[in-house]
């Protein structure tokens, strides 16, 4: 048994400065992994221990992707504890909000692309005036909750350079101002990691992100994407009731309405006459009314305006 006491390590434990923790988050296919690899390589060029951990089982299926990068003189855990991330890079707006509580309170640096990738799940309700089930916080609101925050339209910057997919490298450029590594090291790492055909654009994207961050660092009013409010507007959902009149005498049980109802809330009864099987699911879209060859269905919708009620 190798039972030698680890006294040297013990003594050192107190002296070791804590590891630096960066989280990279986004949606499958955005390049979370490339950013993580770049960070890991930067850590290595500085002679530090590096651990980089990711979950990518469902990554290609449009799901949440996150990666933890830790570097320091001594790194044990591959994952970052909640509240201990020194920086968070979010390649998508709602993903940044999802992980924001992992940042160190007071000092954590929040860097997010304000572009939204809206999942099909967020557009599920067909109801009259239904709101999109997407994160509501605006960049200005989010930045109030963190020590230091940058919310920029990195996709627009990258698109301006000719490659929207280089948005991840723009964000890396923004992060670079809060890390010690010299610019030349970052560029060398990107040069090594990016494929030949997109190398030049990625280097430009990095510089553009860094330039944006340097300006924003000196002027907090530049730190968030002012165009966000114009692109993203929310309305309150009105209260709407729906009723369906089905003329049983005219219905011949052709099944067209049942098959084509987007909410699948119609059915044929024992007499082969259509009826509203799930009234609470009906959104009043009128597809059944329009497609009924016998004009047997009428949809009535009533909007109750909350302001006048």
């Amino acid at each position: 048994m190798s039972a030698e006491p680890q006294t040297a390590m013990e003594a050192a434990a107190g002296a070791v400065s804590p590891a630096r923790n960066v989280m990279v988050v986004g949606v499958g296919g955005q390049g979370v992994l490339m950013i993580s690899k770049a960070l890991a390589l930067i850590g290595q060029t500085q002679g530090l221990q590096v651990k980089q951990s990711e979950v990518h089982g469902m990554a290609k299926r449009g799901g949440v992707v996150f990666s933890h990068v830790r570097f320091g003189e001594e790194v044990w855990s591959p994952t970052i504890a909640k509240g201990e991330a020194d920086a968070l890079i979010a390649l998508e707006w709602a993903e940044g909000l999802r992980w924001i509580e992992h940042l160190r309170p007071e000092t954590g640096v929040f860097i997010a692309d304000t572009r939204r990738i809206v999942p099909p799940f967020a557009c599920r309700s067909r109801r009259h005036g239904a709101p999109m089930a997407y994160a509501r916080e605006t960049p200005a609101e989010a930045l109030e909750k963190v020590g230091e925050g940058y919310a920029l339209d990195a996709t627009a910057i990258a698109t301006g350079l000719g490659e929207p997919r280089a948005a991840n490298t723009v964000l890396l450029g923004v992060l670079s101002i809060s890390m010690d590594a010299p610019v030349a090291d970052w560029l060398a790492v990107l040069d090594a990691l990016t494929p030949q055909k997109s190398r030049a654009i990625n280097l430009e994207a990095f510089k553009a992100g860094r330039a944006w961050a340097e300006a924003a660092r000196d002027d907090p009013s530049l730190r968030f994407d002012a165009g966000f409010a114009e692109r993203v507007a929310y309305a309150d959902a009105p209260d709407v009731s729906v009723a369906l009149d089905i003329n049983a005498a005219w219905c011949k049980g052709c099944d067209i309405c049942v098959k084509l109802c987007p909410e699948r809330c119609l059915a044929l009864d024992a007499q082969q006459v259509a009826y509203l099987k799930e009234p609470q699911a009906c959104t009043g879209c009128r597809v059944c009314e329009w497609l009924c060859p016998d004009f047997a269905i009428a949809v009535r919708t009533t909007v109750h305006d909350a302001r006048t009620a």
Partner: protein
Amino acid sequence: MNRQARLQAAGDVLPLMGNEAIARGAWEAGVKVAAAYPGTPSTEILESLARYPATDLYAEWSTNEKVALDVAIGAALSGVRAIACMKHVGLNVASDSLMSQSYIGAHAGLVLVVCDDPGIHSSQNEQDTRLFARFAGVPVLEPSDAQEACDFTRLAFELSEAFDTPVIVRSTTRLSHTRSVVRVGERVVPPSKGFVDAPGKTVTIPANARRLHPKLIAREAKLAAWFETSPLTRWEKGDRRFGVVTGSTAYLYVKEVAPRASILKLGAAYPLPEETIRAFAASVDRLLVVEELEPVLETAIRAMGLPAEGKAFFPRLGELSPELVRAGLAAAGLMEAAPAAIPLGIEPMARPPVLCAGCPHTGAYLALRGIEARVAGDIGCYTLAAVEPLRSIDTTVCMGASIGNAVGMAATGEKKPVVATIGDSTFLHSGIPPLIDAVYNQANITVVILDNAITAMTGGQDHPGTGRTLRGEPAPKVDYEAICRAVGVDWVRRVDPYDVGHMYQTLREAIVHKGVSVVISERPCVLDPVKIKGAPLAVAQEGCVACQSCMNLGCPALTWADGLYDGRHKVKIDAAACIGCTLCAQVCPSDCIQPMALA
């Protein structure tokens, strides 16, 4: 792109993912034969091994994990080092071979790498392979980082030969998918031992098996004695108020949270070095066990009569983390709890995984939902059709279960038509015996084989239906229709799932066919082996009546437009994501989804 994955000279320090490090360790140990069936989080091991030259080693995708292990066993008995890799549930499939091979031993080094998935990131359960090792009576090594993954795998071959046993190397998602630096070594290929030629050992007839079983039990004791003095068992002396017995990635969390604690790091979870554990327990005031998932170490240590504490403070479910280890030690009264986080009041948005834009499974399940069948599903990307909006799968049990489940459902006199859906790779993995069962027993079921010509879920691996091997060489290609006909299915149709009407009509015919009917839904995966991108469609906004019938596809390229019709959102298509499959255009009742130029 992946420059650091290239082969490097010995003595280099490389950043390697746990799985790459396992592959490196096997390569350094001189492995000559490697076999696996893909499964997250284990898939990259064989992919990494296949990057080494074919002259170094033979590597194959096997049809399933049992075949992979049988291939490795055959090679080891023939005198060369061999490895089989799988995910945790793959070991269930391979377990029949393992249980017997444990009696037989190894001859040349025989290593199984099994990757567990605590936290169920991409699996159907979170079973603990350490229990399996105990059950089979084979040692299980538990590396905690990439360096150990490389070193332990290399060592596993030595152990296998020294103690004449298969050896399990157990990884977890966190280790398999964490990258850290590894000091790599040389490849050393031991000379072939030649075929074992000992039928008394390699033929498990009862007379032989009775002789082999006591050897297995003696082997367990010898291994336990070896672990007493092995560097795999590491006593890190520290604070004596409490000592922690731990291993795997749990060790890293303990080091992170309590760097000054006394730690007994076990490199093997079975068999255990009892004397060392007793000495360690005697040296500290309180004995804690920190382990992920099942209380394997804790139960064994308590059975030794030692007052070990573990699952009273640490969860038995899910993945451990520095937070959970700290909370557990705090609950045990051994350290201060972390300050409570101040909630920022942000409700996280749901973003479940979805089928890709243009996924051929979408068309198949949209049609399937229309026929209102009882549907037994299987394992693959298509399991995502179990939830809204496609919601058309009633059961998913494990690999290859769908067809057998359907036979059982039909046998009960189920009123709805009974359908089994199974992907191409899963069908080849374990779907053929139940299909034969269905034909033989004249079950009244419909089987839909979703042939997307790849193992998609795990990232696009080849299989016997793709016409390519693991190394990308051409290979014979399975003909699914010929298989079905050969086992006696007389009603087989091949359909393009992009033609929703045809798919729907074919399913309607299939379910009224008495006996076993098979529908083969043929369309390649849009991601692998090549990314498919056709001309995108667009929604003519003036024609859209916001019925959102197209949203029933759950396609990630479809989203709400700003414009409203009658207070409801019209729909638009993200041209960058759309591949032009036309499914949405086929379901649009107002015919307003058109090629971009026309819309």
